[in-house]
């Protein structure tokens, strides 16, 4: 955090208005790194051009309406670049005097961009990357996370499975590094909540099985063969962060079982059909503004900018240090359409929040599940708890 203190140059324009109140013009940016990727398994998962940016637009509207009563304005710049242009894009954002930056990128790029931002005293919000290490050994004092971690997602699924008494798991992991990391989160969740992985297999990514004219024909033959002869299990847990097989699992298993994780029942921060806790209002506002359904990335970006809005509204500050300090303080709380306030873990900068379990159509359940208790917050039963985290950047 030392670097945050250095420069607060034009992070924000503070204007003394005619009245007694200080007007604040809040400038933020959303930087999205677009990676070359294969098509998703489902057309429904095609990323819209304004992925994440739409959440920023809604946040600007929401914050701006509130700001209208207080003399605060909000403006968020959105930038999408290929990976090789990410550093230059961050440099430009910082050169523009912006010190509050929401980043949608993979972990390695996120860390580099965060360190680049730190040199200019800027605060970064992670709205995409789920790696646990970003909240653990690789945490940064100028990095807050509104995105869920792999650990939070896995724990959310594990709690639901254990609540259902589906404690014998067949874990199927992908072979890409992200899949392997996610699978490790599920193994840890199983140990944490008393489930047993009775069968643990890796489904090799050979570049096939994606949607094609006849993809389903192959899948229908491959997956039953792959899943036969597994030990008796209650549920299949899929760890497929790269989206190449898990969505196919549900009806192609050798032994019919429910699927959770990357396919079947999926943990997510938000989805376009979530209606409980007043979320209908979020959805109608979002749809009216953007003409499409909300994606988790939109919600994560919206959350990050609402955190900024709360700091400006309540603590009268838009400087990166001020926003960060307020966000991780006990005074901070935010209503986020999930039935309870969301707050930050002051040991690693992760936003603690309920996790929705989504079957592609509705919210099936919300974790934490009943009966999973914690001495300070039931939300801390998901993800890295204080004693587990090796993050020291917030000390």
């Amino acid at each position, binding site marked *: 955090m030392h670097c945050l203190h250095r420069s607060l140059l034009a992070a924000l324009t503070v204007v003394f208005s005619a009245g007694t109140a200080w007007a604040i013009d809040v400038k933020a940016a959303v930087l999205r790194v677009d990676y070359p990727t294969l098509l998703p398994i489902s057309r429904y998962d095609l990323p819209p051009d304004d992925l994440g940016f739409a959440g920023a637009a809604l946040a600007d509207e929401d914050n701006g309406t*509130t700001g209208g*009563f207080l003399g605060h304005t909000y403006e968020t710049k959105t930038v999408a670049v290929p990976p090789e242009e990410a550093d230059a894009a961050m440099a430009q954002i910082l050169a523009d005097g912006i010190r509050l930056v929401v980043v949608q990128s993979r972990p390695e790029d996120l860390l580099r961009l965060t360190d680049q931002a730190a040199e200019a005293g800027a605060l970064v919000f992670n709205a995409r990357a789920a790696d646990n290490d970003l909240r653990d050994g690789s945490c940064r004092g100028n990095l807050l996370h509104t995105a869920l971690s792999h650990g939070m997602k896995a724990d959310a699924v594990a709690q639901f499975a254990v609540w259902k008494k589906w404690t014998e798991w067949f874990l199927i992991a992908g072979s890409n590094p992200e899949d392997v990391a996610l699978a490790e989160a599920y193994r840890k969740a199983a140990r944490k909540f008393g489930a047993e992985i009775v069968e643990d297999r890796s489904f090799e990514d050979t570049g096939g099985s994606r949607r094609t004219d006849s993809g389903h024909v192959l899948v229908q033959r491959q997956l039953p063969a792959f899943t036969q002869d597994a030990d008796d299990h209650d549920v299949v847990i899929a760890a497929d962060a790269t989206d190449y097989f898990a969505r196919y699992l549900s009806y192609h298993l050798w032994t019919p079982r429910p699927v959770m994780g990357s396919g079947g029942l999926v943990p997510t921060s938000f989805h376009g059909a979530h209606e409980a806790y007043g979320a209908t*209002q979020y959805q*109608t506002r979002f749809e009216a503004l953007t003409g499409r359904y909300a994606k988790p990335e939109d919600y994560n970006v919206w959350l990050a900018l609402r955190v900024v809005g709360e700091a400006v*509204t*309540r603590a009268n500050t838009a400087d990166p240090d001020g926003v960060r300090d307020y966000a991780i303080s006990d005074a901070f*709380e935010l209503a986020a359409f999930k039935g*309870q*306030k969301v707050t930050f873990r002051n040991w690693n900068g992760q936003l603690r929040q309920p996790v929705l379990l989504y079957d592609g159509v509705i919210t099936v359940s919300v974790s934490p599940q009943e009966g999973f208790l914690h001495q300070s917050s039931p939300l801390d039963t998901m993800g890295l708890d204080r004693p587990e985290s090796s993050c020291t950047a917030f000390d």
Partner: protein
Amino acid sequence: MKSFLLSTALAALIAAPAYAGKAFISNERGNTITVVNTDTWEVETEFFAGNRPRGITTSPDGSVIYVCASDDNLVRVFDANTYEELPSLPSGPDPELFILEPSGKRLYIANEDDNLVTVTDTETRTVLAEVPVGVEPEGMGMSPDAKFVVNTSETTNMAHFISTEDYKIKHNILVDQRPRYAHYTADGSRLFVTSEIGGTVTVMDIAEDGAPTVVGKISFEVAGVQPEWLQPVGARVTSDGTRLFVALGPANRVAVIDAQSLEVLDYILVGQRVWQLDFTPDEQFLLTTNGNSNDITVIDVAKEKAIKSIQVGQQPWGVVTIE
């Protein structure tokens, strides 16, 4: 407020034959209003009330029932005796809660999706004004002298004090997360604003000119209930200003609060997801709508005890009573 109650009571004594008091409950998911006899506590009938009926109120003389039909984007109007539907009122989009001024003329409606409070004339059935407020306006309270209407905005987290003279916002007070409801004492000297996600009730003293000053905050604690589920929603204060009752949503309890010292005295167990409240006109009973158990609970106000629950329609939301 007191004189209004009195005049209603007198009118009922003089004009009306001996019909029993009634409670009207809006059933958000059932799209109906359930009518409950408040003497026998029997359900009299249930009738179609429009799509997603939520906020519900009555004309000062108790002859007409108004209900926010949220998904119809209008206020539906019903005869309180025959249940016949009368011409609707324009409300602006997605009306959720509203408040009728004591004269019965102007209805102030929160439009949740449009960050507006719509002012509708109940006689000419026209929109008189639209007042821009914070994000997701919901709670609506009115000062007893009818000079101010207070709207709470759930995402902006403010109580907006709108002058009924020029429809301009005169004061904005920040409160805790997701303010749901605003309610004045009968003498107008205090205002209570509930914050569902913040888990608190903000207490304001109101000056002669209507200006608010925050003087306290009430929070809640129930052994064995996670603090996250103590979510204040509906509120009512006795007309003598001594007791405040606050519905605590998924905690399934109504808090009983000393409205002067702001000390929480008791928690009354009611049905599931308790939402809105209303007294019977004589203030002998307090009725609660319990959205997840599809019933209402009757609380004896003097004894501060729940005495009965009555099954109503699907997902009861609001309640209003008449003599």
